[in-house]
């Protein structure tokens, strides 16, 4: 008998008949009688017939060919999502079904592998950020920054929030969204137009007695290095907290950990390690703080303990902060961890090791320095800001900046992010990123296309 049952519901005709009998209706149709006739479809949905697996695969492959990836183009995009090399071992390890199919490790007796992996991830985040404790990860860097703001408000009991305008614009938007429910949007401290960083003096003036925290990105959205020690000194003098956001954690391989510069909460985006660009997700937010604020961290935390035989083991810990216990008074009711992405991050970091990370950071730094020198050597392109940068920098390309990006695109070069959409004052500016994925040849070609574009102008 051809089934009238729904294709993705596993009940047989016989089961459906019995269910209907028990509830006392004759057909599924009868159940739907409560809907007014004018809201009901008159016939079946106008959909084509289903495809076979083979046909479906071909269709999807054809659609995916319409996309271009960083393999087809020479990409100099960054701005919070970075094109880095992912060693093959990362995907092999995270594809093991023990990791790939596992759910939240609430039962430690059957989840030691996942728990140990998260514990090691947290340990790596603490080492990179220079903080005491990290959570098991959050959705992404932007939501981690928003959680940090809420956490700072809980810790200090104060209401106002300062953010630097050199913080990623989308991170600022996310913070606004999180704060929009409870009054008092953050106030922005404008970056210095000449240096491209937050000036401690400007920052100091913005504080009041009711300022819970200041959020600054380092390296900031323009790639520039902020004066974190000075900013944290001010925050602490004002009995407030400094939140440092890091969108490019490869920078940890060269820069002093924020924890050693006085940061109270360090958050950021972990995509750079082990996670591909993926059209923007899934990514992973990392978050770390000092021991004295441990109880205010949102999200899951894995701790190390001993089992009944005294053997080292792991479990979810400090769970009373969390929504399944504290309900509306939990540290967060809008977070989870990105287990598999965090695992990919931990595996990549383990493969790199301390020396590997240092070398990777130096490679990124020197590539960006080379490209910046090449591009600003082109007549028509200038450096926008005077501050030192890591692997991103802003160029000023005149009134034809957007035309310039289009000309590059024709030569299969994605030249960077036009900043106009984020900063109207920077309508002639482009944010350019270089990583280990950009060869010298690619960078030279970028400069050559620039040369010929501006030569024509």
């Amino acid at each position: 008998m051809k089934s009238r049952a729904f294709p993705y519901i596993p009940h047989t005709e016989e089961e459906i008949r019995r269910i209907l009998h028990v509830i006392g209706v004759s057909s599924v149709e009868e159940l739907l009688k409560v809907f007014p006739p004018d809201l009901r479809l008159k016939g079946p949905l106008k959909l084509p017939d289903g495809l076979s697996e083979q046909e479906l695969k071909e269709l999807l492959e054809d659609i995916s060919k319409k996309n271009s990836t960083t393999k087809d183009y020479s990409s100099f995009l960054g701005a919070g999502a970075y094109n880095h090399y992912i060693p093959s071992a990362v995907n092999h390890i995270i594809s093991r079904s023990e990791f790939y199919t596992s759910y939240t490790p609430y039962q430690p007796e059957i989840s030691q592998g996942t728990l140990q992996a998260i514990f090691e991830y947290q340990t790596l985040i603490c080492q990179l950020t220079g903080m005491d404790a990290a959570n098991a990860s959050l959705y992404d860097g932007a939501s981690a920054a928003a959680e940090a703001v809420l956490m700072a408000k809980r810790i200090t009991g104060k209401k106002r929030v300062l953010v630097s305008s050199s913080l990623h614009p989308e991170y600022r938007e996310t913070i606004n969204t999180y704060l929009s429910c409870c009054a008092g949007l953050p106030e922005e401290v404008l970056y210095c137009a000449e240096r491209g960083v937050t000036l401690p003096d400007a920052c100091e003036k913005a504080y009041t007695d009711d300022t819970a925290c200041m959020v600054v990105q380092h390296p900031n959205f323009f790639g520039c290095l902020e004066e974190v020690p000075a900013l944290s000194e001010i925050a602490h003098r004002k009995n407030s907290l400094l939140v440092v956001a890091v969108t490019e954690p490869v920078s940890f391989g060269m820069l002093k950990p924020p924890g050693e510069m006085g940061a109270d909460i360090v958050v950021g985006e972990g995509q750079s390690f082990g996670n591909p660009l993926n059209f923007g997700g899934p990514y992973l937010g990392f978050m770390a703080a000092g021991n004295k604020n441990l109880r205010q961290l949102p999200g899951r935390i894995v701790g190390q303990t001993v089992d009944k035989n005294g053997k080292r083991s792991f479990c979810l810990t400090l769970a009373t902060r969390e929504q399944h216990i504290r309900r509306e008074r939990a540290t967060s009711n809008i977070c989870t961890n990105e287990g598999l992405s965090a695992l990919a991050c931990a595996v990549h970091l383990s493969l790199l090791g301390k020396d590997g990370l240092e070398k990777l950071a130096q490679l990124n730094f020197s590539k960006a320095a080379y490209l910046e020198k090449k591009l600003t050597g082109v007549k028509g392109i200038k450096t926008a800001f005077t501050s030192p940068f890591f692997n991103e920098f802003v160029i000023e390309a005149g009134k034809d900046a957007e035309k310039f990006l289009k000309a590059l695109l024709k030569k299969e070069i994605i030249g960077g992010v036009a900043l106009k959409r984020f900063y109207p004052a920077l309508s002639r500016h482009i944010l350019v990123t270089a990583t280990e994925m950009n060869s010298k040849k690619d960078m030279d070609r970028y400069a050559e296309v620039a040369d010929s574009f501006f030569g024509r102008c």
Partner: protein
Amino acid sequence: MEFPKDLKYTKEHEWVRKEGDTVIVGITDYAQDSLGDIVYIELPQEGGSVTKDEPFGVVESVKAVSDLYSPVTGTVVEVNDAIGDSPEVINEDPYGDAWIIKVSPASPEELEELLTAEEYQKYTEEEK
């Protein structure tokens, strides 16, 4: 189980001792016994305000986490920071060393609304 006669009590299991113009607040012997081993206490800030029947802190045991409710409205004049470092004292000496906060009450007549030792003891027996 101890129910000292000179204290006042709340149905949320806090005790109150009047001392001059201030009142001292803690949790009862019955509360610590029901909670089990206490591992953490979240204390309010000195100088902050508390409101009658509103949470002012959190106490966490190996079994559960509970809010601490203020028996009176007023200002926190002193916080027992020592129990923050060793919350187990709450299990050992709930009416003595483990006092939690001292409050300067805004309207001292609120104290009259609290339970006496006999009333509280009866309440705990009914709760079981």
